[in-house]
Each structure stands twice: as C-alpha cells, then as structure tokens.
C-alpha cells in the first residue's frame, strides 16, 4: 500500500468506527434480538419500504454500510498481520480486505439506487 493513501485510510477507519459505534448497537438489538424474540412487533412492510424510498434514508444506509466495511478492512488487516504474523502476505491481505469492503459498498450503492 502506497504511503500517501495511508492517512486517508485511517480517516475512513475512524469515520466507520464512529458511525458503527454510535448506530450499530441499536439497529442490531432491534432487528436481530428484540423483534425476532417477540419483545417488539416488527414494523409493517409498507412502513419500511416507504422509509427506504426517502433519499435521506438511502444516504444514511449507504453511510452506515460502506464506512463500517472500510473500518473492518483496515482493522482486520492489521489484526491479521499481528495476530497470525503473516506480514509476508501483505499484498494478498490488502486485496482481500479492501476488495471485500469495496464490493460491499458497491452492492449497497446498487441496491439503494435501484429501490422500486
């Protein structure tokens, strides 16, 4: 990874870390635990698709998907280096981590752009 891009990656890492720290617990708790366990009734389909059609919701969802993915890529990259001591596989790790984050972000952009 070239040097000039590194501070930029750290910035994306911080944005993704902050966004996910602030917003993931509530989303995960509601959609993954409270609703499936029956503590709260699930929102109706019409309400959710209406919400999803709003441009601000789409922007919001893109931000809370793309930045956290880059956050993962950056953090996981260094964890692989230190944890597994595989610094000689740098190129492969970099391609895998940032590539996956890029694919996920592109999928988010595509899905959010094409909401019926």
């Amino acid at each position, binding site marked *: 990874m070239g040097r000039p891009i590194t501070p930029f990656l750290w910035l994306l890492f*911080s944005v*993704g*870390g*902050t966004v*996910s*720290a*602030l*917003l*993931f*617990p*509530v*989303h*995960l*708790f*509601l*959609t*993954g*635990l409270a*609703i*499936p*366990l029956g503590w*709260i009734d*699930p*929102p*109706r*389909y019409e*309400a*959710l*698709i209406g*919400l*999803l059609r709003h441009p601000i919701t789409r922007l919001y*969802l893109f931000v*809370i*998907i793309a930045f*956290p*993915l880059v*956050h*993962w*890529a950056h*953090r*996981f990259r*260094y*964890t692989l280096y230190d*944890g*597994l*001591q595989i610094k000689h596989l740098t190129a492969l790790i970099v391609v895998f981590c940032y590539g*996956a*984050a890029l694919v*996920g972000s592109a*999928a*988010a952009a595509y*899905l*959010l752009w*094409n*909401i*019926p």
Partner: protein
Amino acid sequence: MSLGAHYTPYHPKWYRRRVSVWWWLQTWSYTRFVLRELTSVFVALFAVVLLWHIWALELGPEAYARLLVRLGTPLFVVLHGVAFVFVLFHSITWFNLAPKAMVVRLRGKRMPDWVVVGSNYAAWLVLSLAVAVILLRR
C-alpha cells in the same frame, strides 16, 4: 527450517525469538486487545446483514416475511446475540479511547477527558432513541 539461530558478529538482529501464533492468549490485556480488534469482524457482518434487509425489502412483502422468519430461527438469534456483545464492546472501547485519539480545545484550554467521553455517550443515547422511534413508528 532450522531452528538454530545464526550468530554473526555485528548482526545481532539475525537472532529472532519465535513467537507463538497464540501470543495474545497468555496475557489478559493482549487478549482484550485482540478481542477489541476482532469486533470489526462483527461490525462488517452486521453491515452485510443490513444489505440483506435492504435486498429483502426490495424483493417485496413475501421476501420481507421470509426474512422475519429466518431472523427468528435459533441460529440467527444466537449469532445476533454474540454479535451484539462484540458490537457493544466496540462502542464502549471506541468512546473511551476518543479523548486519546482526538484532543478537543475550547478557548485554548484542553477539554477534560470525561467531557469528551460523556458527549460520546450522550450522542449514542440520543441517536439510539431516534433510530428506535423512526424504525418502529406505526
């Protein structure tokens, strides 16, 4: 590979002690560090789950109903439970480190750490309530 170290005058660095891949399990503070770094895996997984939700909603009401059934299966409830613990660990460690990562100054005076940490937790509370209200409104 030979385990013997090559000693050469003036090249003391050629001797490297081999460190186990599990070095971080021997000391709790190292284990906590690696667990904190691994929270990013659950952050990424949940980002993918969000993509899955959007996809199901786009496919239509039947797909959304199937998603709700799938999320209620024991496998997904357990996975979400584990992910929730890791994501909470991420939030708490992230907020507590904020004053070290970012020094906030007001009129030339450095803000005390507890103010920075406290405002993070306040923002967390407010945003969580806002998301809950918007997502669950009838």
